[in-house]
């Protein structure tokens, strides 16, 4: 037996792999179909389905509330847009503070470590409550008692702690030989960090950071607890008004429309990076 091409011009190995591929595609298709059928047939058979359908999937309510929800989502996007740059800057500063060697700056290292420990250790919603209610409670005059400011600050402080840790892992992943090479050329420590280590570190952690910002986009909804009428709060208002849960489903769809493409893109970047490294 030799591996001569058969009549179709394919080797034994290729024919075998074709067969294997057809077989796994068939299995995947039929099992997917079975699961979908089960859901479509079984769920409506459940005793409470009609009630659930009426209160969660009411088309009229959906059409009526969706434009307002979309409008309210703009606020979520705004809060995201002014928080994200602040998170990147603060996260990077904290990461760098935790890397300083100079003894005079030792307090900075301790502060950096304490900061990340505290804000990574407390649930986001708690931080939002404590800062969002606590600081305006000091009796600050308008506009300094705005929940937008302090709510955003709570998000910034929490997320910067995570982002700082990711930056730090990126900095540590750059091999020591790169620092040696930079130093051997007479570059200062600051320049070595700025031009050699950081650019490589940041590139490496972009996919992980994107995942943090997808989580941030969702957590903006937590600010609804302290006042701002963003999409989650708006959906709640509609729920009370119409005695119907469909607005929540509408809000979920709007979030997904943003987060799914972003998640896919982050996964794509990560896969690309893994390919390049291997």
């Amino acid at each position, binding site marked *: 037996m030799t591996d001569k091409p058969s009549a179709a011009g394919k080797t034994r190995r290729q024919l075998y792999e074709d067969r294997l591929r057809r077989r796994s595609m068939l299995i995947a298709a039929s099992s997917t179909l079975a699961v979908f059928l089960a859901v479509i047939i079984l769920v409506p058979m459940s005793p409470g389905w009609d009630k659930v359908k009426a209160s969660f999937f009411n088309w009229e309510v959906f059409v009526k509330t969706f434009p307002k929800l979309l409008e309210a989502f703009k606020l979520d996007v705004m809060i995201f847009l002014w928080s994200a740059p602040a998170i990147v800057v603060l996260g990077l500063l904290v990461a760098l503070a935790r890397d300083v060697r100079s003894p005079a700056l030792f307090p900075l290292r301790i502060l950096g470590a304490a900061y990340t420990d505290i804000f990574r250790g407390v649930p986001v919603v708690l931080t939002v409550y404590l800062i969002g209610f606590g600081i305006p409670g000091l009796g600050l005059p308008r506009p300094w008692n705005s929940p937008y400011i302090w709510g955003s600050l709570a998000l910034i402080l929490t997320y910067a702690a995570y982002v700082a840790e990711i930056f730090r892992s990126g900095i540590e992943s750059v091999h020591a*030989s*790169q620092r*040696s*090479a*930079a*130093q*051997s*050329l*007479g*570059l*200062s420590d600051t*320049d070595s960090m700025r*031009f*050699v280590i950081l*650019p*490589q570190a940041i*590139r490496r952690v972009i996919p992980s950071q994107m995942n943090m910002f997808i989580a941030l986009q969702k957590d903006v909804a937590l600010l609804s607890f302290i006042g701002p009428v963003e999409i989650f709060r708006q959906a709640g208002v509609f729920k009370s008004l119409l005695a119907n849960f469909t607005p929540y489903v509408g809000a979920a769809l709007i979030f997904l429309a943003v987060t799914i493409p972003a998640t896919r893109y982050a996964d794509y970047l990560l896969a690309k990076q893994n390919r390049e490294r291997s």
Partner: protein
Amino acid sequence: MPKLSLKNVVKRFGEKTVCNGISLDVEEGQMVCLIGASGGGKSTLLRCINLLENIEDGEIFLDDTDISIPGLDPQPVRRRIGMVFQSFNLFPHMTAAENVMLAPRRVYKRSRNDLRAEITDLFTRFGLADHMNHYPDQLSGGQQQRVAIVRALAMKPEVMLFDEITSALDPQLVGEVLDVLRLLKDSGMTMVLATHEMGFAREAADKVCFLSNGEIIEEGPAKALFETPQQPETQAFLARAIK
């Protein structure tokens, strides 16, 4: 007066003594090769000369100035001593030209435009003119190592250190890098090499030192050391190294 002079240099990593009282003189324009088994202290000695490692005892003189004074700012010294590494260590996020220009730009505050002609000259001299705008991962190992040499030369160092710069290369690429070293020697550069290329050391070095366990066991002109080694340990090493 030697260009570079080591006096009784001691370097320890924890309990392990890596350089155990090494003394060595390198004259201006000389090429000195350090040979010996891996772990003998060659690389560490080069890193000490460039102040990438602090020495525990002894002195290192560059032009009769002690550069090993504890607390001395290492940066001005490193500008005068170039170093090339076994694993190239090019900056992967920059093109070859940017790799070379970074240090002159930051340290000597020179502009890209001002550097352009000079850098192009260097690349051309080492047969790299076509690769200036390539990223390191688009270059062969030999090309990367030559760019690393150009990068060090762009700082106009007075002494160059080479740490087993051909050890990570495919055998067919070693030649082009050794040619660069010959070129540099002809231009009068003072050089110290840690190397496993015995043929090259024998042909090109002015002085060869055999290191073992952190000490210079034997040193002398290349011809003498390779043809009539005096110490039994040197003889054994050379018998193993040159088959």
